[in-house]
């Protein structure tokens, strides 16, 4: 059911497709038939009173990343505390909620989804419109944090950014307190060899075959090996999350390595977190972790 991931996968990065495959390019829609879910048919029902439209026209272990030395670059604001209707917005160290404010936009990264909104500002009063978010199914505590913040977002009505070390967003029964984000971590530049693949902390198969590896070659590029395909790509940060903005997977895989190849690319391709645990490098998304050891010359 590998293709089921088309339905589950967050999208929003760039990959050069020119060298991805020499195989026949199948229909995008056709692959959806592999999904086996029941669904309820619906049709347009009796209209209810018109809504107020804000859209315009026009769980892995929380400890396996976050220990990398922060880069001294501010990347926006980090949610330190949030209260909505008297309830705390749950915050996770490894899935920070990041805010970026521009003159006309308020956007950022919730616990696992990107969000955007247009902003009209009159001194401290703000009006958000065209509020949009990606629709990644985060699961568990990450989902709870993500849902809580994205639900609070449309209720923001005031901003206080007069202090350099704190930013307050308020609304009816809403208080969000942000502090400057420490910025993205610096990724280790040595080469790392894959030791094991964990799905929800359970090891997949007996172990990686054919020595998969990854190397972050600079502040923006990486290279790797899935065991059968060579990877070359570029990345950026969204908060502490690493987003691959371009990736080429070069070569082809025998059937025996396709699953491993798919696992590695799925983690790298959908936004991941990097952390050091003792001497191991952990690269993980919300469900899978790739655990590496440093290759020493």
């Amino acid at each position, binding site marked *: 059911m590998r293709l089921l991931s088309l339905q589950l996968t967050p999208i929003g990065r*760039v*990959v050069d497709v020119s060298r991805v495959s020499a195989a026949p390019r199948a229909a995008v829609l056709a692959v*959806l038939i592999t999904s086996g879910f029941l*669904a309820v048919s619906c049709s347009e029902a009796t209209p209810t009173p018109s809504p107020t439209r*804000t859209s*315009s*026209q026009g769980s892995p272990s929380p400890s396996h990343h976050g220990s990398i030395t922060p880069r001294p670059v501010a990347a926006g604001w980090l949610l330190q505390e949030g209260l909505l209707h008297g309830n705390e917005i749950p915050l996770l160290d490894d899935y920070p909620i990041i805010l970026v404010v521009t003159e006309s936009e308020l956007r950022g990264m919730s616990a696992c989804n*990107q969000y955007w909104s247009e902003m009209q500002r009159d001194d401290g009063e703000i009006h958000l419109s065209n509020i949009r*978010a990606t*629709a990644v199914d985060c699961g568990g505590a990450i989902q709870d944090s993500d849902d809580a913040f994205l639900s609070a977002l449309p209720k923001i009505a005031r901003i206080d950014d007069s202090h350099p070390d704190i930013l307050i967003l308020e609304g009816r029964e809403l208080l969000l307190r942000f502090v400057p984000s420490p910025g993205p971590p610096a990724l280790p530049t040595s080469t790392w060899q894959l030791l094991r693949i964990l799905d929800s902390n359970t090891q997949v198969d007996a172990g990686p075959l054919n020595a998969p590896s990854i190397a972050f070659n600079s502040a923006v590029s990486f290279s790797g090996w899935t065991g059968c395909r060579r990877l070359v790509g570029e990345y950026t940060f969204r908060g502490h999350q690493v987003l691959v903005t371009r990736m080429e997977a070069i070569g082809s895989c025998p059937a025996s390595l396709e699953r491993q190849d798919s696992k590695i690319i799925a983690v790298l391709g959908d936004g991941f977190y990097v952390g050091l645990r003792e001497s191991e490098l952990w690269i993980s998304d919300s469900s899978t972790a790739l655990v590496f050891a440093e290759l020493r010359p």
Partner: protein
Amino acid sequence: VAENGTSGHDEQWHKRSDATFPNKAWDGNPDWRWITGKKSRLYISVGDYVCHWGKKTGYGCGNVESRDAVACNDGSGGLVGIEVHSSANLDLSSKGDSGGPWYLGETAYGTMSCHSWVEPYGYIDAIFVASNYVESGLNVVIKTSP
């Protein structure tokens, strides 16, 4: 895996080399439908009735609210997203629906990208990427025949 998240785009393609897929799309209504045509953004109009299937929300339909919605991507947006609203304020997009098909009858319209907030109902409106953007962004062709 191939992706394109540049301005105006938000689509992803997964392939496997050990299978060939026919021109079908899942709709859960009750199962799948043939896809024999496709409609590009140019020919999608405000008010058009269109339906989809998503892993979370299942099968649902609505009307095109805008064909110039801000797309959701890492680029500078691009006013080419197709926004769909249900007059019954049904939830047309929940977390996990990304990538699902939009169609009417046997005509492919596009694939799900993200959702937008409608007060007081929540993130119920869907924004999808039109079929021609899916094709051009990924350099693929949506099959309309076996």
